[in-house]
């Protein structure tokens, strides 16, 4: 499946299409937030950055 199958449809454009991994991230966030569509906070951004710091 090519990447154009994963682009968003309602006006919120990303600078590049969604990858399969990004679909997994979004799916996990939807699951954990119970589809509440939460906005990232400063604390969440910091937690994300921490998660990507090489261990």
């Amino acid at each position, binding site marked *: 499946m090519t990447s154009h*199958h*994963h*682009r*968003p*449809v*309602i006006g*919120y454009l*990303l600078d590049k299409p*969604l*990858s399969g*991994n*990004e*679909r*997994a*991230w*979004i799916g*996990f*966030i939807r699951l*954990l*937030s119970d*589809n509440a*569509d*939460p*906005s*990232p906070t400063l*604390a*969440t*951004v910091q*937690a*994300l*950055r*921490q*998660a*990507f710091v090489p*261990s």
Partner: protein
Amino acid sequence: MKMFGRPHVNTRLVKLLEKKILELRGRRSQFEISAEAGFPQPTMLAMIKSGASKLPIDRVPGLAKALGVDPALLLNLTFEQTAGDTTARAFMEIFGTAVTRNEVIWLTEIREASGHVDPTMTTRARSAIRGIFGK
């Protein structure tokens, strides 16, 4: 389990509707939300909320605005209700999932935090996200 006469009662769209209409109670009645969403019959929203009817796709933008939710979220949940519908399936095959404005921000943050390496959902990443949501 599907209840007789209410085939959509267990869908996530119905749960979202119940939650949002409850949150708006005291400020806007279900009747007012229905009118604002553009339903021709006031009872239509009640039927969708009860799970008796599906949300028609052409009502997604109006209802999303009336409820104060992102239309992309409501569209995805509407497509879930139409599972098996060939039109919805074709649409999803071509366009994939619709992302909300907030999800765009999440994705941008994930891309930046990872150094644009298209990170997989590792155990560590899952733990970080679980921690964010307290789960």
